[in-house]
């Protein structure tokens, strides 16, 4: 089985600070692989090494079975990248952004024109082709960055926090496009700190913090394994409730003004707590990836 990305002991150090600390991961053809983590966890540094922007400090990194150090040019010509920062060319129009980018890949102009047309249609911007990119909304710009990253028909699409700062409509618009691309068989590497995004798009993911992988797996498996099926959240828990939960030996987190209980099939327990201890807010809900994330990476601020 040939991997699209194969990272072993991948390490990146900046002046003594270790941003990525010997991580291993593999990405299969046709899957969407997520790298999740809080700000500063090493997500962007990792993908930058994969798309040949940052040289690695140690470890091995193969993309399409080729060594990134030796074959960077042929690897880069087969990758599409949506960088985190808006790097659309403000000196050029919407369509020119695509055409000029196509030239960087040595795509003949006739072919580029055709492809640009097709992509503008794909991101529903065909009627804005001669607009300045600075006139576009945040969501349109993100879609443009996506379109630009597809100009070379990539075999691997890399998305670095693609929906950060977008409103819900724009996020869903973008997700829909990504799902279409996924359905078409495109391999995707995605970084995000939005758990709903990861749960919706990723087939497999890793959660990293301080440059190390904490867990790896399929989103649902990770939820089941680390949190369970359901979560009970209780606002302002009474001391008697704390004692009760402790006595049952349940897995829980005590945040002071809020108690979070993890586990399986809590219906009866929930009614029990509801009837006997609940004074204010008490909810039973499905466990999510966010519970896993917070449980593993901690609740304190990261920066």
């Amino acid at each position, binding site marked *: 089985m040939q991997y699209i990305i194969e990272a072993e002991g991948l390490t990146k150090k900046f002046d003594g600070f270790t941003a990525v600390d010997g991580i291993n991961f593999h990405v299969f053809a046709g899957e969407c692989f997520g790298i999740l983590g809080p700000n500063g966890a090493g997500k962007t540094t990792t993908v930058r090494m994969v798309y040949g922007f*940052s*040289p*690695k400090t140690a470890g091995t990194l193969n993309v399409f079975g080729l060594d990134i*150090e030796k074959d960077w040019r042929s690897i880069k010509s087969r990758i599409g990248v949506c960088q985190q920062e808006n790097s*659309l*060319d403000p000196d*050029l129009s919407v369509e020119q952004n695509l055409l000029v980018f196509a*030239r960087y890949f040595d795509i003949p102009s006739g072919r580029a024109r055709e492809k640009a047309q097709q992509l503008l249609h794909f991101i529903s911007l065909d009627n804005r082709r001669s607009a300045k990119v600075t006139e576009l909304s945040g969501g349109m710009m993100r879609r443009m960055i996506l379109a630009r990253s597809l100009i070379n028909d990539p075999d691997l699409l890399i998305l670095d926090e693609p929906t950060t700062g977008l409103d819900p409509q724009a996020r869903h618009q973008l997700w829909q496009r990504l799902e279409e691309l996924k359905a078409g068989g495109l391999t995707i590497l995605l970084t995000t700190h939005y758990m709903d995004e990861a749960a919706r798009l990723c087939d497999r993911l890793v959660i990293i913090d301080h440059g190390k992988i904490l867990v790896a797996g399929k989103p649902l498996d990770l939820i089941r394994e680390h949190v369970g099926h359901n979560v009970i959240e209780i606002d302002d828990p009474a001391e008697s409730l704390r004692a009760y939960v402790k006595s049952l030996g349940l897995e829980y987190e005590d945040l002071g003004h809020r108690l979070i209980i993890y586990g399986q099939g809590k219906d009866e327990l929930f009614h029990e707590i509801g009837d006997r201890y609940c004074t204010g807010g008490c909810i039973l809900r499905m466990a999510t990836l966010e519970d896993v994330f917070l449980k593993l990476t901690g609740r304190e601020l990261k920066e």
Partner: protein
Amino acid sequence: MSILFSVSISKRFWRVWQRNFTVYQKIWKISFVPPLFEPLFYLLAFGLGLGALVGNLTYQGAPVSYLSFIAPALIAVNIMNNSFFENTYASFVRMYHQKTFDAMLATPLSIEEIITGEIIWGATKSVIGTVIMLAVISLFGLIHYPSGLLIIPLAFLGGIAFGALGMYFTGITPTIDMFNLPIFLFITPMFLFSGTFFPIENLPAWAQTVALFLPLTHLVKLVRSLSFGAIYPALLWSAAYLLLFFLVFFPLALIKMRRRLIK
């Protein structure tokens, strides 16, 4: 820091040049104006205004009018300014504010190709400006032909020399405002003391020696000689000096820009 990707410059750097040319095509009408009017302003102010006070002066043993003395210098200064400002302010905006280089680095372009394309583009702007100025100044009968045509390829040589210098500063300057420093320390003194507005022979001996190290001194000398149709073998030394200047600052610019952008 390890040099990971070995220095590689393929002809793909033209893609970077093309990007800048595409942008230029959108604004060429405005870009045409300065090289068209600047020489007219200078010729009017210095040639007619100041020239009336100065009268004729002696250049290489022959009397020349002040107007014909400074006209070639204006072309030389324009060659310097076009590429130096393109590869400082304009390149810095593309690199730092517009993230244009970051986007390019996610494509098969190498950092060396991006920087090479930028410098060649800066030199191209020097050539475009020179062609326009030559046309304007020729109307006054101040350029000797056909030797004057050699000023066009010379503009390219001067352009890459000053462009590489500018790009080196772009590689090391922390903020765009800091370009004031190299301009104050290098560009302004060169503008004044490179035999532009008066012959360097008028300077004290020590200052003449210093002036010989300024690349603009050599560029002015070359443009002036070609304008006068006075070509002699020693001019090759001046051309060689400009080439040497490029050969020193081009690799320095590549090293500094790689350190700055590749992390």
